[in-house]
């Protein structure tokens, strides 16, 4: 079991601690208040994990962590239940059949779709092993030319532009429309882009106490970070979470399924576990190894 180092993402020493930890241990494990942060070099490989049998999600995570020697695993995108899943969930307390679960957004492994349905209105993270940058983020369905990719995510920061419930513009500039694509003349003054997936997360009945799972990338530092704020571990508004990333210099970030789905395992130890209802139903996780 590795104990996280207490450090703030807003601290000027953050990257020094990260660099020293990576040098000593191949990754940095940091805790900023209630937020766990695992930072890797961008040579880390993303390994999607798919539950394919009627077993608990965390048991799949435990077994994949050991068999594939994964350094860290988080939960992935949001999902719905089809009629088969609802019927299975309603009767008994056993895990729900994976066929009853519909992950929003595809899961790509080795160039092929292994699970999920396309979510062209959401965001993705893609890992390329032979292309720079090795981690790419964007809008639309997850690309199938990547070594691994996951779609169906919500945006925090995309190519340096922060996302939020409304558009914001530079002080003193003409204020354009509050939501949606700004006009070309307003676009150059845009400092925050609106997104209703972001709004939906912030309007959840348990927000801001709700869990957050995110992946962020710093192209300047060439580092990938996994961030998890466990459910009910204190107030953490999504905008404050995003601002921590911005301050630390991450120029891309997406959020995955949160609330009581949020999960983090580091070197075979759980630091955040999903609620039983999610443990019975979630199909997809994302593992990382060099």
């Amino acid at each position: 079991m590795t104990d996280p180092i207490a450090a703030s993402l807003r601290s000027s020493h953050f990257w020094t601690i990260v660099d020293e930890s990576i040098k000593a241990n191949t990754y940095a494990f940091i805790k900023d208040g209630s937020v766990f942060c695992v930072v890797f070099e961008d040579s880390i490989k993303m390994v999607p994990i798919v539950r394919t049998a009627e077993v608990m999600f965390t048991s799949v995570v435990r077994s994949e962590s050991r068999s594939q020697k994964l350094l860290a695993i988080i939960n992935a995108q949001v999902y719905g239940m089809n009629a088969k899943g609802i019927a299975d969930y309603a009767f008994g307390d056993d895990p729900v059949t994976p066929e009853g679960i519909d992950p929003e957004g595809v899961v790509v492994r080795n160039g092929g779709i292994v699970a999920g349905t396309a979510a062209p209105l959401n965001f993705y993270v893609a890992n390329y092993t032979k292309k720079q940058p090795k981690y790419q983020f964007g809008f639309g369905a997850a690309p199938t030319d990547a070594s691994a990719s996951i779609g169906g995510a919500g945006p925090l920061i995309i190519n340096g532009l922060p996302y939020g419930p409304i558009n914001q513009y530079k002080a003193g500039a003409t204020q354009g429309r509050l939501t949606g694509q700004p006009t070309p003349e307003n676009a150059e003054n845009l400092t925050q882009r609106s997104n209703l997936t972001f709004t939906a997360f912030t309007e959840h009945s348990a927000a801001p106490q709700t869990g957050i799972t995110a992946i962020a990338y710093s192209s300047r530092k060439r580092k990938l970070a996994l961030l998890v704020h466990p459910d009910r571990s204190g107030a953490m508004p999504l905008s404050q979470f995003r601002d921590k990333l911005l301050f630390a210099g991450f120029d891309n970030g997406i959020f995955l399924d949160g609330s009581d789905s949020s999960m983090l395992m580091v070197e075979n130890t759980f630091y955040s576990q999903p609620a039983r209802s999610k443990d019975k139903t979630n199909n997809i996780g994302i593992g990382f190894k060099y």
Partner: protein
Amino acid sequence: MRTLHWTLLASIALVFSLLFVAMNTQFIVAGGSDSLEVVVKPSALSQWVTLTLFFCSYFFFILRKTRLSPLQKNINIILVLFFFALLMLNSHFFRISGRENKLVDSWFFIPTQSISFHPSGDASQIKYSIQRTAIHIHTVDNTSMTVITFPDFLGVSKHELQAKLNSFGFSME
């Protein structure tokens, strides 16, 4: 005849108890992961109070062994139906789904009407107007829905629904 009445009462109580328990479980209301689901529904207190009122009214007005005039009988039946109608209103909920990118109006967990939205689009293109007992929502391409609303203590609250629609940037006409 009394056995039939007791069976009917027990069945209704069981069905609505299960329904209310399910409606107060966020995961079931969302039909999956709920982190992007915003739900406007009657309060749990209102649901259980109306179920109790219906149960008591059925017991006192229908099952009680007393000789009643036809007028009294009719009044009793109207009262029981009134409480049953209140019970029905509590099966209604409205969902703004960030997962499905939809506004969904449901009764008894059955979606009856919906409107899709683009999460990166201009939210003000979805407009709503307040009516006496409903909120009418429509898009520029003339897809529309009318959500029946009631005072805060019963059914889907007009004020709560309006607040949620505002927070998403949908515009009031």
